[in-house]
């Protein structure tokens, strides 16, 4: 029996050693691949090669992950982002690609349900990557003997080296022949090192190290599973807990509430008092919001008119930011009231009604902010921030819905943050499917007679918009000149060809950039722009 056990243990040890070796080989191979495909290239088709390697290695090292539904859904989202990176090659698709890749790895390596905790685990992977890489390497088990080996050599070398440097300096100053020989040796050494570093670039070495860190962070699971252990103790459903006054008082927040409420916060009727305070607060807040919503309904929803002389941006900028803050604050207040045992209090009916009314009113406020943004877009066209507000409002709506669900079905804050984070990931993935620069340019140019075109902004958009701008450049120029006449800005320099020149400059820059890249940087967006200018024969591009 003992011999059988020892054989089994031996096999187990061999298996662990093999797996460790495989990990190191895969991470090193990944770093080399990273160096080969990304050096002096942009993220494009090369990402597909690197990603294919990473995902294969990940599922080889953590085979159980293939059975996880969360991993499969995330993988789908990640592949959408990868496809969009090759097709649109936008900054958003690159960011989404990295976020989803990290999450796929986080969910594959650890046991998670929440994106937040998986993100925490991946952060731990990044911080611990060096230790995780060195850990599988078997070092000699012999204890280091004091005063032996390389360490001894270093210790013996320090003092003679100092003496050598000092006397070298003295002889060099004192003896001119020695000085010239030393100078010649110095020149030769400098030459040697410059040639050596030409062949063996420092930047390339650092880039390899970066590849090692990135591949290691994704493939090597950290031994610190703090976040997965923490998450294992969390549930979606709220549990009723009984806390002693002593336990409650240990929290700083309770101490603050007690300071304001006095004995009402800690006595026998504390839950009832909390309920009453909540009802009064929500009643007052609902009345206040009703007034604001009534004003918005009248002036914004039903009888909106652009005021002459007052720019639209004033109305949007003044209103939007504060309203968004108020909606987020509203959710925080609701989370405060429904944080604990008030959810289970029998007479909380009116508190719940007040909360639902406030959620509905806040949803209406979201609608008002949306209308402000919409009117702004109608007058000034699309821009990044205006689209950003729309996405933010969508997230806020999801947030309000989940707050409602939390109160209705007695869910925990963990549920709330988990669902909202997943919603955020879905929205992020969907947002990558649109080339926003092209969308903005197309939308604004199509409505050039109704919106105030910001031509310099359009010229600052990514290269994919160049063909579109090139087709419309004359009308853009005319538009700009018209605006100058309307504004009667006599001091402004006349601009008959400046936009055309700027566009030509952008085309040239695009051509120069494209010549620096190899097939590894191929992406549909650049290929489309390249083909357009090749067809126009405006610039010659090497294939």
């Amino acid at each position, binding site marked *: 029996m003992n011999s059988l056990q020892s054989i089994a243990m031996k096999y187990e040890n061999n298996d662990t050693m093999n797996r460790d070796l495989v990990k190191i080989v895969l991470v090193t191979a990944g770093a080399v691949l990273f160096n080969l495909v990304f050096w002096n290239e942009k993220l494009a088709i090369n990402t597909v090669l690197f990603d294919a390697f990473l995902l294969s290695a990940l599922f080889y090292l953590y085979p159980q992950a293939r059975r996880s539904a969360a991993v499969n859904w995330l993988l789908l989202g990640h592949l959408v982002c990868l496809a969009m990176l090759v097709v649109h090659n936008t900054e958003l698709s690159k960011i989404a690609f990295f976020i989803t890749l990290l999450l796929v790895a986080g969910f594959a390596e650890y046991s998670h349900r929440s994106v937040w905790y998986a993100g925490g685990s991946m952060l731990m992977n990044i911080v611990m990557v*060096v*230790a*995780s890489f060195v*850990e599988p390497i078997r070092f000699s088990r012999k204890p*280091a003997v004091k005063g032996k080996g390389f*360490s001894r050599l270093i210790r013996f070398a320090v003092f003679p080296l100092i003496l050598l*440097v000092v006397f070298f300096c003295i002889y060099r100053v004192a003896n001119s022949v020695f000085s010239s020989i030393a100078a010649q040796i110095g020149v030769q050494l400098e030459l040697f090192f410059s040639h050596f570093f030409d062949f063996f670039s420092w930047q390339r070495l650092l880039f390899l190290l970066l590849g090692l860190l990135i591949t290691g962070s994704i493939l090597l699971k950290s031994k610190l599973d703090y976040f997965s252990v923490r998450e294992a103790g969390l549930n979606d459903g709220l549990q009723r807990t009984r806390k002693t006054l002593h336990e409650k008082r240990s929290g700083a927040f309770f101490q603050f509430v007690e300071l304001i409420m006095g004995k009402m916060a800690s006595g026998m009727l504390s839950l009832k008092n909390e309920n009453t305070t909540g009802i009064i607060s929500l009643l007052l807040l609902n009345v206040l919001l009703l007034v604001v919503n009534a004003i918005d309904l009248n002036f914004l929803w039903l009888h909106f008119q652009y005021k002459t002389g007052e720019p639209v941006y004033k109305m949007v900028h003044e209103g939007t930011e504060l309203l968004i803050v108020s909606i987020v604050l509203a959710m925080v207040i609701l989370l405060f009231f429904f944080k604990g045992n008030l959810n289970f209090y029998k007479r909380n009916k009116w508190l719940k009604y007040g909360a639902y009314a406030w959620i509905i009113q806040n949803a209406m406020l979201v609608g008002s902010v949306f209308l402000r943004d919409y009117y702004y877009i109608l007058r000034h066209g699309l821009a990044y921030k205006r689209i950003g507000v729309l996405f933010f409002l969508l997230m806020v709506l999801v947030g309000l819905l989940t707050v409602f669900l939390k109160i209705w079905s007695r869910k925990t804050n963990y549920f709330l943050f988990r669902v909202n984070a997943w919603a955020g990931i879905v929205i992020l993935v969907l947002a990558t499917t649109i080339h926003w620069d092209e969308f903005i340019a197309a939308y604004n140019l199509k409505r050039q007679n109704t919106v105030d075109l910001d031509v310099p902004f359009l010229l600052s958009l990514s290269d994919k918009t160049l063909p579109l701008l090139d087709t419309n450049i004359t009308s853009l120029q005319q538009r700009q000149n018209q605006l100058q006449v309307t504004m009667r800005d006599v001091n402004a320099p006349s601009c008959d060809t400046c936009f055309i020149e700027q566009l030509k400059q952008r085309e040239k820059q695009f051509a120069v950039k494209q010549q620096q890249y190899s097939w590894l940087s191929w992406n549909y967006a650049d290929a489309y722009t390249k083909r357009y200018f090749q067809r126009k024969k405006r610039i010659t591009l090497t294939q």
Partner: protein
Amino acid sequence: MKLLSVSAKLWWKTVFLNALFFGTWAALTGDIFDMLGSVIVLVAGYITTVPLIIIIAPLLNISTMLPYSIPARIAWLTFHLIIVVVLFYMFFSVIEKGALFVPDSYAVQLMRTTIAGLLIAVFTTRRSITKLYSEI
């Protein structure tokens, strides 16, 4: 106390080796002023980098708590100390030149020699570090 003494050991060795390497490199390239400058690097290095001990000691303390083997913990510590060195010289470069990295500047030269010094300092202090890990 042991933690602080090991941190101080790592610090003084790195500063000393940095000055030594800087001087040796200057001797090899035949720059006499830089050779003398290594004395300034030594003295100024000790004065300006004393506060770094308050970063080195917590890093060393964190490394003692990691559930990894001793070589892995030492590697983790070395890597994070290198990051501290790089950040220190970036800060130094921003104050001196107004940019994070200026190629072939003194800051970059010193950063290279400091990293080399740090690697040797960790290597020659590994017994004290190992002892610290086994004690805690």
